[in-house]
């Protein structure tokens, strides 16, 4: 019996030694290890034995089986590393696909600017999107009959006040939060207000009735135009890199005095002139100025004691410029083909 086992082991190992191809390996496996193979036959003998012999032989066969199986596995792995080897061996195949989430490009750019201003000690504020005529216009020095209040520019809510006028509207600018912020927090104040704004204009590739703006203001003692300029530069450098230049020229906004615009050297052509800047080398981004004393007063701040600057820009436009988006409608389209690119 013992001899039978020794012979079997010898035969097995010699035969295994001779295996050189995977075909031969298969044949070998069939001969020794299959259900009706030689090893199975050997083990089948156990059931014919009895008592102590059965116990001994059974243990020896089982021990031999695990040893030989191990040898076979070794040989197998030498010859053909693992099953399905032809799939794994191409390491250039793509990994398993995992769904990833995406933040909206407006969120991405908004956060960049929020982080910049938070680092400078600015608050981030928010204001109502459905706003009163008072905070959106009147408190900002936009008189009752200013063309900006025309029905064709502003979405009004169909709800008249006691005088029979529409006095609820979708805010046309984030500046609506200026007076609210001044009233609530007083001076000194440093804050930015990003948010959704609305204009009643037909949409096309360049116009969208719903878009985002970002407003910033700083109020304190002796805040001046040079301070405004430094902030305009900070914003430009953040957006378009450290070599960005700023250019300012007078522009009228009812809620600042003096009023200005702000242009940056075009990020694409660095001021040489290209398609993006329409050949001028400059991109008009900002509206800004020193806060009008009437606005400070409306916010309960004494313009003789405090002064301040304010600036604002179209966040949607920045997003479009940054990512080369050529159709304003994409931002609000909910089109996954667009959203999953960010």
């Amino acid at each position, binding site marked *: 019996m013992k001899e039978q086992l020794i012979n079997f082991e010898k035969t097995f190992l010699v035969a295994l030694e001779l295996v050189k191809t995977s075909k031969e390996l298969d044949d070998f496996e069939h001969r020794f290890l299959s259900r009706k193979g030689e090893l199975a036959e050997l083990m089948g003998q156990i059931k014919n034995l009895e008592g102590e012999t059965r116990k001994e032989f059974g243990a020896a066969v089982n021990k031999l089986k695990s040893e030989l199986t191990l040898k076979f596995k070794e040989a197998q792995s030498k010859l053909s590393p693992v099953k399905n080897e032809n799939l794994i061996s191409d390491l250039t195949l793509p990994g398993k696909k995992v769904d990833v989430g995406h933040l909206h490009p407006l969120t991405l750019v908004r956060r960049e600017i929020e982080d910049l201003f938070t680092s400078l000690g600015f608050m981030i504020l*928010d204001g109502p999107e459905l706003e009163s005529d008072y905070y959106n216009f009147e408190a900002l020095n936009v008189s009752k009959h200013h063309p900006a209040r025309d029905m064709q520019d502003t979405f009004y809510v169909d709800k008249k006040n006691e005088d029979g006028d529409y006095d609820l509207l979708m805010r046309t600018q984030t500046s609506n939060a200026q007076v609210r912020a001044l009233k609530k927090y007083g001076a000194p104040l440093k804050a930015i207000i990003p948010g959704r704004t609305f204009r009643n204009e037909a949409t096309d590739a360049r116009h969208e009735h719903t878009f985002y703006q970002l407003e910033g203001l700083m109020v304190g003692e002796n805040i001046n135009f040079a301070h405004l300029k430094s902030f305009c530069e900070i914003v430009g450098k953040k957006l378009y890199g450290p070599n960005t230049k700023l250019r300012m020229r007078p522009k*009228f906004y009812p809620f600042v005095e003096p009023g200005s615009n702000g242009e940056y050297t075009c990020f694409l052509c660095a001021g040489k002139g290209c398609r993006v800047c329409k050949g001028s080398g400059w991109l008009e981004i900002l509206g800004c100025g020193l806060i009008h004393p009437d606005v400070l007063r409306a916010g309960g701040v004494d313009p003789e004691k405090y002064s301040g600057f304010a600036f604002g820009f179209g966040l949607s436009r920045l997003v479009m410029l940054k990512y080369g988006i050529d159709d304003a409608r994409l931002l609000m389209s909910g089109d996954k083909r667009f959203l999953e690119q960010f």
Partner: protein
Amino acid sequence: MLISYDWLNDFIKLPKTATPEEVASKFTKHTVEVEGLKKQDSQWPGVIVAKVLAVEPHPNADRLRVTQVDIKSEVLTIVCGAPNVAAGQLVAVATLGAVLPNGLEIKESSLRGVVSRGMICAEDELGLGDNHEGIMVLNKNAKIGEPLAKYLKLTDVVLEIDNKSLSNRSDLWGHYGLARELGVIYEAPLKDYSELLEPEIIEGEESLNVKVEDTRLCQRYLALAFGGVEVAESPQWLKDRLQAVGVRPINNIVDLTNYVMLETGQPLHAFDRALVDKITIRLAKKKEQLVLLDGQEKELDEEMLVITDGEQPIAVAGVMGGKDSGVSLTTNEIILEAANFEAVSIRKTAAKLGVRTEASMRFEKSLDPNLAEIALRRFYSLLKQIVPGVKVISKISDQRKFNLSVEPVSLSLDWINERAGQEIPATKVVSILERLGFSLTNDNGVLSVLIPSWRAAKDVRLKEDILEEILRFWGYDNLPSLAPMASLIPPIRLADLDLERKLEDFLSGSLNLTEVQNYSFVSHHHLKKLGLGESAYLKLANPLSDQYDYLRQNLAVNLLNNVRTNQFNFSRLAFFEIGRVYFDTPGIFDKAGDDNDRLPYQQKRLGLLLASKEDLDNFSVVKGWVESLFENLFGKNWEPEFVVPEDLSSYGDPSQTVRVRLNDRDLGMITVISASAAKEFGLKMKAVVAELSLVEIEALLAVCPVHKYQAPSKYPAVERDLAFVVSGGMLYNDLRKEIKKFNPLITAVELFDTYQGGQLGEDKKSLAFHLSYQAEDRTLRSEEVEEIQKELVKYLEEKFSAQIRNF
């Protein structure tokens, strides 16, 4: 607005080195935006003087001629339809490749079998007038081959100014006002305009009958009659000036009113004296009609100011004159109107009539009432030049009711420097203001500044306004850039914005959702399809279209629309949106400072959407999102509960809708869109929407205690599996709650299997749990656990008729 460089030079002596390009760029830097610059001598490129050598009839067309035309470099065959073409004429020829003002590009073409290589131009084709009677015939002294612009001595340069940048500056709507700005920019002498005015008007006998009924809308009305008027074509210099700035010459009188307007900014109007005996300025009556100068018939209303002859309207004040009372070739006496009308009324009238004219554009900017008199005197001095026989035949009628006396504004040089962030020399400050026409005194660094009427009328009132004048001419680009100093105080952070950011990060970063931004508006069509009545919704008074006419009250409608628009491109959509919804009930924001008057409620919400072609148990997935989100926000303090709601949304599947509760507050709902709503809305995907209130989440966060660390027990837990058979209507939530609170040694209850129907019977289900028993202070004995479990089974049997199920 178009501005002639030559015209500006009538008033200002610029340095020799100044060029139109430089002037344009300086205007842009200091005053208004110049959008473009057009040199007249580069007008009509390719249009040159030519001589007609021969004219022959066209072989195949009676009305056409075939001409041979000498353009110096060659002789061209040109087919011409004009009846007046004749050999020997000098004419303007548009050569191949030329583009005419009307956009016509000249190409070689075959006209009825004859190849034509150019075009002989008529006046209208060149934008020089209305004449299309025949081709334009040039003087004998024209040189063959020279550009037409050169022949016409057109050497002016035209600046195109952005009207929007002029909206607050009524004083810049004429050449003289812009020349005044150049005077400051170049520190160059400005001609005194009073030198150009008729010094003294010797009045005639007649008293004009003028009555102003509405002195608020018409603060000043000057009228003066002239006799001996010969209406004729204007002299060339006058026509050239008008044409340079895009105004069509008509006749000498009309042209002159336009000329003075373009110079001073003050619109003038001339009536035919023979047709107008009496002038009354009043509001129009309802449905009054008037045929305007341009032939349009308009119906007026009671808000429009009109000029009448005492009975009928003869002009819409400040907008346009009437056809019947205007100057014609037979006119020999005129009444000249120089008036001041109220800006808002003019703007509204022009908008309502749909007639925006050069006059209305100026009046709506608020003109200086003094300008009316200046314009009248300028008109007279020019009229005398071009119509020598003219005579004033009436007294000057000057109806006026205005008060422009303004107090001087006081500001110190120190204040100017403080606001500038730099010291600006006092001499520079004084020079800027004086050149602009401000008069001032300097008392030890404190300036007392008197604002000129043409600025007081509209844009200058405060010391800040004066500061702007100083800074813009000093140059914004010349000011330094200085970082402000501020106290080191950490900014207040708003909890709702912090929460939003946290949500954005978790939803996109951990749950792998895509953020979407949808409109605040919804369509009533969409509401209807989802069975939502729009009556409670706030409506826009002036929506762009019926696609977006109501303010949304949920995020679901537009999220479902996202499914509709994306479903053909994707098999699965996982979106989130953070946005506002709007309700017709008072919210937290005040309307205008009064706490009792509040804006409609605007709640921020979080919307979650999962949609897929196959139903992959989306409901459970969204529930899992909500659970993990809450664990992220609240730690293990509270567990959400999902409750079957009493009232259902109109679009949700009643068997798959739950309200989400946390710490006894209702946060929102999760719902599977019902098959009928999906069909109605056109959804090809199975969609689940969750909507949660950020206000509620924020409120819970504010009171949520910090989750304290709990050390794992040193003693092993005993695990037991238990399955209960309960009635089909029994909720997992209720069963679990009872097990959990049954004994403090039960530390975890986790569902691992559910089974319904089959051998259990129709109305039964089985819920199988892993139970963990664990004590803090000892190793539990098996008997102890068995004891508790026995009691638990008994308790549940009594309470819910729950039967233990044997595996």
